[in-house]
Each structure stands twice: as C-alpha cells, then as structure tokens.
C-alpha cells in the first residue's frame, strides 16, 4: 500500500523484518519478490505441501481398503518410475506415454479457461480429432506418402477439434448458450458419432468388432527408446510425446508473449474491462475455443498414431475430463499443466502396477486422482483462508 514516510516521526521504530525491508524500497526494482527463482521456490514449497496432504489422504484410503500403505506406495512408485538408476526405463516411459494425452488436453483447458470459457469439451474434441485422422488414413492411405499422411492426419485432427470447439464458442458468442452445457452435449455427439463410424464406414474389413482397421505401421509415430535401454522390453514411448512438449512452449508463448494472448487473459479475468479497452471480446472467446479444440483434437491424433494404432468405440478413458483437474492443479499455466500432467501420468502408470500387486480393481486410480485433487483444493482453500483477501 504505502511506504513509511521518513518525514513522519515514529514514536517507536517500526518492525523491519526482511520482507518489510524489501517492500520499503519499491523504487529499486520492478519485480522484487517475483523473480523467477523465487517463483520456482514458492511453487516447489507449495507443491511439497500438496504432496504431503495427498500422501495423508492416500494413506487413509489404503488403510480403508486394507492394503498395507507402505507396500501400496512402493507399488505405485515402481509402476510409475521403477528403478531408473539401473537403466530400466520401462516404467518411466509408461508414465510419459500416459502423460501426453493429458498434457495436450490439459493445455486445451488452460487456453479456454484463461479466456473465461469454461469448456468441458476436451473429450469430444479429442474424439473428433481421432475420428478425422482415422477417416483421412482410411481414404487417403493409398494416395499419399507415409510421412505426409501422418502430418495431414495431425492437421486434420486439429481442424476437427477446433471445429468442435468453435461450435460451442459460436453458440456462446452469438446465442449466449452456456459453453459448459453445450460442450458436454457435443461430447456425447462425438462419442456416439465415433461409436457409429466404427461399426459403419470406418469398421475394420473383417467386420468383427466395433473398431477400425489398424493403421499401417509406416504412418505411426517412431518409437523413441530402443529395447536395450529398457531391460529388453519394447516400450510405447513415441515421438508424439515430444509434440506435447512443444505444445507447452507454444501455448506459453501465445498466452504470455503475444498481443492476442494478453487480450485473451484480460477477457477471461474481466470481459467488461476488455471490451472497454477495445479488445475484440467475442473474437477472442472464439479464438480460445478454437485453439483449445485444436489442442484436444491433436491429443486424439497423437494417441491414435502413437499408442492405439486404430480407432475403437472406447478410444478414450476420459482424458478430456481428467484434463480439467490437470489444468486446474497446474494453476491454468502451461508449465504447471506439464507438472500436473506428469503427476497424473505417473499415477495412471503406477496404479496399473498397484492393481496387479494388490488385486484391487484399477478403478482405484480414480480414487487416487480424486484424493490428489482434494488435497490441492483443500490446501488452496486453507491458504486463501489464511492470507485473507482484504485491501483498504
């Protein structure tokens, strides 16, 4: 607020701990307590707190399920990270494979929610992306060379996802239909559209199950890890993971280093102020929905080309929904989304191992994810309560 005026005599010397000394020389620098190292430090301290709360909740969960907590934690850890020091990289590769769809859809949520568009449509956009890519492969495979087809499939998936997002954006901007509702409805349309296509035009030639033919190996993503590095096991780690990492950078640069990213953030925080500042609010909201949809659509194609290799009726285990806690735990920041996507990816990989170890159903992962979200939400609420929100 104000700094002590030297001309006013203090009856007693004012308390001057370190933090105060910093703030009383505001002219010195533009951003004293907000340097990047400090941000990182506080971020890490915060996450350490979340982790503690998470472990406590998880211990209680395990105890309730009569699983010895220490063994359970060990199984989780081995499944997610394994014994990396000995050169056995398979568990980590699994974690990364599970991370990439969550990261791409999580970034999609970051972009939309930053613009104040509370899109729940990641799931539908992902499915539309996978569907468009599959259709292109089905009808274009013979006409196009392999690397070009792969690229076109990615582009088609982004367009399809963007279209699905823009539909909800248009309904909001022009017809004031709440995007929370419309995106959920569009998710169902996409889900049953995929379900229909894989028993219809896109069904495998053998026409046995609700799935498409496997894509030709030539157009799939390359495997990154030679089996020698992972104890002789073939890993699923594919080059699409790198694509997700690039997307982190792109989204960060867009949000924090471009004019429309800036305007988009203002719009999300206060649309009225954005309008008064002559930002094109409606266009920015559409843009956010389009970009968000493109990222989620890309997630679908990446999963198709990197892991699944074919489209089927149960293509996604709900990545587009898990993306929301991923983005929220990451503080709606692309780098934060990377950290929390890794966390969720590790949980997914680890809980697979845990269910093999304990015989508990693998739906336990949802319990664990919920515990993580509760830990963070609770910790944040506690922080907000402690710090108060008062200014004169």
């Amino acid at each position, binding site marked *: 607020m104000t700094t002590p005026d030297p001309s006013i005599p203090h009856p007693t010397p004012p308390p001057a701990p370190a933090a105060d000394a910093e703030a009383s020389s505001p002219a010195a620098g533009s951003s004293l307590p907000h340097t990047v190292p400090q941000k990182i430090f506080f971020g890490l301290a915060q996450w350490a707190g979340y982790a503690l709360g998470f472990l406590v909740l998880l211990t209680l969960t395990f105890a309730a399920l009569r699983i010895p907590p220490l063994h359970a934690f060990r199984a989780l850890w081995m499944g997610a990270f394994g014994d990396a020091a000995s050169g056995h990289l398979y568990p980590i590769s699994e974690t990364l494979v599970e991370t990439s769809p969550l990261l791409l859809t999580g970034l999609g949520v970051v972009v939309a929610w930053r613009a104040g568009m509370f899109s729940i449509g990641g799931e539908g956009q992902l499915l539309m992306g996978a569907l468009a890519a599959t259709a292109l492969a089905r009808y274009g495979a013979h006409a196009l060379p392999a690397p070009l087809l792969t690229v076109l499939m990615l582009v088609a998936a982004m367009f399809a996802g963007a279209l699905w997002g823009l539909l909800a954006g248009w309904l909001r901007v022009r017809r004031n239909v709440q995007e929370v509702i419309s995106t959920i409805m569009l998710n169902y349309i996409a889900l049953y559209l995929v379900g229909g296509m894989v028993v219809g035009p896109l069904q495998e030639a053998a026409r046995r199950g609700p799935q498409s033919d496997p894509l030709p190996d030539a157009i799939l993503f390359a495997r990154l890890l030679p089996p020698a590095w992972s104890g002789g096991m073939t890993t699923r780690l594919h080059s699409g993971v790198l694509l997700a990492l690039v997307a982190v950078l792109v989204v960060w640069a867009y949000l924090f280093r471009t004019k429309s990213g800036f305007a988009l953030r*203002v719009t999300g925080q206060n649309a009225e102020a954005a309008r008064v500042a002559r930002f094109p609010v409606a266009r920015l909201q559409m843009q956010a929905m389009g970009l968000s949809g493109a990222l989620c659509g890309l997630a679908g194609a990446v999963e198709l080309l990197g892991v699944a290799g074919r489209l089927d009726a149960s293509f996604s285990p709900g990545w587009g929904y898990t993306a929301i806690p991923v983005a929220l735990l990451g503080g709606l920041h692309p780098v934060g989304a990377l950290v929390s996507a890794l966390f969720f990816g590790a949980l997914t990989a680890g809980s697979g191992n845990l269910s093999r170890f304990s015989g508990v159903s693998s739906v336990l992962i949802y319990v664990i994810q919920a515990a993580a979200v509760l830990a963070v939400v609770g910790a944040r609420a506690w922080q907000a309560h402690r710090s108060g929100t008062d200014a004169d």
Partner: protein
Amino acid sequence: MRPTMQADSRQPTDNATVPPTSSATPPNPPDRTDAASGWLTLRGIGKRYGATVALDGVDLEVRAGEIHALLGENGAGKSTLMHVLAGLTEPDAGTITLAGHTVSIANPRAARRLGIAMVHQHFTLVPAFTVAENLALDAGGFRRWGRYDAHQAAASALERARALGWNLDGASRIANLSVGAQQRVEIVKALATDARILIFDEPTAVLAGDEVEELFGVLRRLRDQGCAVILIAHKLAEILAVADRVTVLRRGKRVASCLVADTDARQLAAWMVGSAPVSLPVSTSPANAPDPADPLPVSQPSPNVADLGAQPVGVNPALTATSLILRGDRGEIVLRDLSLAARPGEIYGIGGVDGNGQVELAEALAGLRPPVSGALMWNGQPFTPDVSVRTAYIPQDRRRAGLAVTMSVEDNLLFEAVGDPQYRFGPFLRRGRLRRLAQDLIEKFDIRTPTAALPASALSGGNQQKIVVARALRHAPDWIVAMNPTRGLDIGATRFVHDQLRQARARGATIVLITTDLDELAALADRAAILAWGTLTDFEVGAGDATQLGLLLGGMERGKAGDVMDAAESKP
C-alpha cells in the same frame, strides 16, 4: 457474555444524556465522563499483509449513542480496522473490549453475536432474490423444518424498517431496485440481527443528494436509539454534518480523535493528508455542503498546475454529437435526440444523478457504443476512436470496467499499449519495452505499489484509479471522456486526477466530464449541463448559483427518492 452485553446495550447509560431526535443539527454528544465512555474499545490493533503494514497499533474508543466517523485517505486502514471489528479480518495484535469485557471476534458470526454489524460499500445482497428472501437469509428462516417462509422470517426485519420510516416491499426483487433502495435493504439486514454497533463503509458513495440527507436522518435515529454508529467517510462535509466524534487514521495509525464540535474541515483535512498544512481555499460547493462556507479542498487546482481555465469562446467545437439515440444493455432506448458539442481546451461538464443514461452517453462518446441513430463527428469527419483521433475513456467503475484486478499492476497498465506496433516484434510482445513503459507510468502517475508484479487488487482504490487514469492519458489523447473519475477517492488522489485533467485541458485536449459530484463539476468544468430525463440543460458554472443548480437537480430527483415500492415500479 451475551446476556451482560445485551443488558448493557439495550439501555446504554448514554441514552439519558442524548436529547430527543433533532433532524437537522447534531445533538450534543454523549457525556464524556459517563460510565459508558469507551463502551467499545480497540487497543493497539495491528495487522500486516505480507510486507504491508495496514494497521500499526491503532486505538479506537466508541460510545453507545454516538455517530463516530472514521476518516482517512484510501489505504489509511479504515476498512481494515472495521473488518477486524466485524470479524472479517483477524488482527495480528491488540485487544477489543466491549462493555468492560475483553472479547475475541474470530469470524462474522461472533461479531453478530456481539451485536456488531457492517453495512458494506459493495452490497452483499442476492440480486435474484426478493427483499424478504434476502432478509430471511440472515434471520435464519432457512433452518426451521427444512422449509421456510421468507416473509415470516423477514417479518421482524421489515418491522424494524418501518420503525426507521421505510416501507420496504418484501416481494420486490433486489435486481429491480435502485441503488439507494438496495442500500436500505442492506441496512435493514444489518439491523435485523439485533445490532448495537453498526459500521457503515462509505455509505454515501452510491447515493444522490437527498438520499444522503435521508440516510443521515436514519443514522441519527439509530444513534438516538442507543446504537453506536461508526461511519467510514471521505467527505469532510458529511462528517461535519452528521458525526458526533471523529477519529482520523493515516497510514495505519491513529492521528487524532476528537469531538466534531471541536474541529473544522481545515483541521480534519490537515490530519488526514499529513503534517504539511493543506491550503484550503473556500469553494463554491453548492449542493452537498450544509454549511456554505465549508471548505472542500478537492475543488481547487494545486499551485503547480498551469490552470489556463476556459479557452476563448470562439474556438470551433472539435466533437459534435447530433440527435443521438442510444440503447441500454437490455435494448431499451435510454437517450433520445441528444446533441452536444465540445471544444478543444475546454472541459465540458455533464452533471446529474446516476441512471439518467450517463453510462450509455459516455460509452457512445468514447466510441464503445454505436448509436442507434445520430452522428458523432470529430472536426467535421466521422468519429472513429483512435483512428480519427487519439481517444481516452475513463470508465466510472474501475473494478467492473477498468481493471482486471487479478492481473498484475504492470499488465493492467498495458491494456492499450499491447496494441501499439512499437511494443511488438512480429506477433510477439516486446516485454522489456512494455515493462519500462509500465515503470514510467508508475512513476509519472505516482502509483504506490511495492512492485509492478503485485495483483491490482492489492492496491488501494486511489492507486487503482491512478492505473486507469495513467492508461487513459499515457499517449496525450486529444479527446477524453471521463466518467466519475474520482468516485470513492480521497483528497490527495482526487486532486491528482483533477490536475491531470487540467493539464490535458491546458494541452488543448477536448474533454467531456460526466459526474454525479457537483463539487467536481464546479471545480473543473468550463461549461456545464445537467442530464436529466434524457435532456441536457445548460447552465453557467460561474454565474449559476447554488439555488439554480439545486433546482435543476431537485427537479430531476422527483420519483427517485421514493420508497422501495416506487423504485420497483419505476423499473419493472
């Protein structure tokens, strides 16, 4: 604790010494030697937010049956102190004594049990609910048998309202009420909890002239019923008019506390802004001041501003608006066939009470609201903001339309700059240049913040407004639309904003000032008009005396000062 409290509070010994209600002049303050003196006592209250010291060992004594004004600049700690009392903020240090008992007020519920209630500046009503439902929320009507009758739950509150002379219609929806009527509901809601200590946070900021007088009448009635009324205020004239005692805070410390009768505006202003004596020229404040000679220092320019005053009359208008028809947000026509002309080097003031189409007019003049019909011309060319002329708009509500308070001070200073090619490299922003621009603006406009990275919400209202003003005036605009640019600001910040507008005028900018504050109009405008019932009525600032202005406004306020039912009917 509670029985003692209530026994004490229901019949405060002070009551005996308080003369019966007198509507115009404040009665004698309660006897200071009375046993009830220091009925509510705050001792050494301290509160820090991180590195910021909001309260630094503040003392405060409030008696039952008095109106105690709390005066100070934005950021002086008034609101924080009252939030401590209302249980909204936990103090780091200090004790609170009520009727001889030390109490701890951990949360608003504890405050309520002690009979402390706060009427907030930003209302805490549910807009979609009716008056009765809002009152029932606090009366606890929801808890009985899982069902509730809002009217029954609110009955006692509505009864209290009648005791204050208000006939509230329980069935009116809050969203349909005028601001003044909403405030009445807010006050009744506070009273509904058997409150004996009532805190009003700048209650007059949202009210028009005669609504203020009516509110003051209610404050006096509450005082005479034995309540302790604490009034957070900015306007000296109001404190002199209604308060019995006043405590002045500055930078988190108590500067002075005394009987209002023992002080004057000059002294209060000096305490409020600091040790340096403030020059307080006598102003011509026409409407609000009960005492014609009451000095209102905000009205005069600082000596360091070259105040050229009005330009020669012969100058051609730069902006002309002809036959504007404007729609409101809900599609209703709010202004019909309105014309005006503004000249360079001149401040054209438009006064009037809120809700007469000012917002729509301001937005149209700023190029943000295309008129349904009519023409806006700039020097004979069609007006397009920032294309035909550098345009600045200071919106009336900084938190709603001016700032994204969750974003940093720096970001908030850059809304317009990011569109400027000199701050971009291809699609990317030049963060270094932008950061320097923000630093320049922070220094030039004296925005007090420890760092530019702090969220704008952490700043005081005055400093938030400086962000809005800095953004508007950063590129020396030729066309300025300012709407209530000093609402809720203290003397220092008000003077700063006024000086900025005067400097722009001296530069030759064309300025339209739309304000509900007649003192501001008198202080700044070279030419002025009152906007009422959709028409502009010119009046001469110099020659127009208070009576004339009062008549203009008085005519306009017909139907605005009615009770809630009137207001509800007028806005279906």
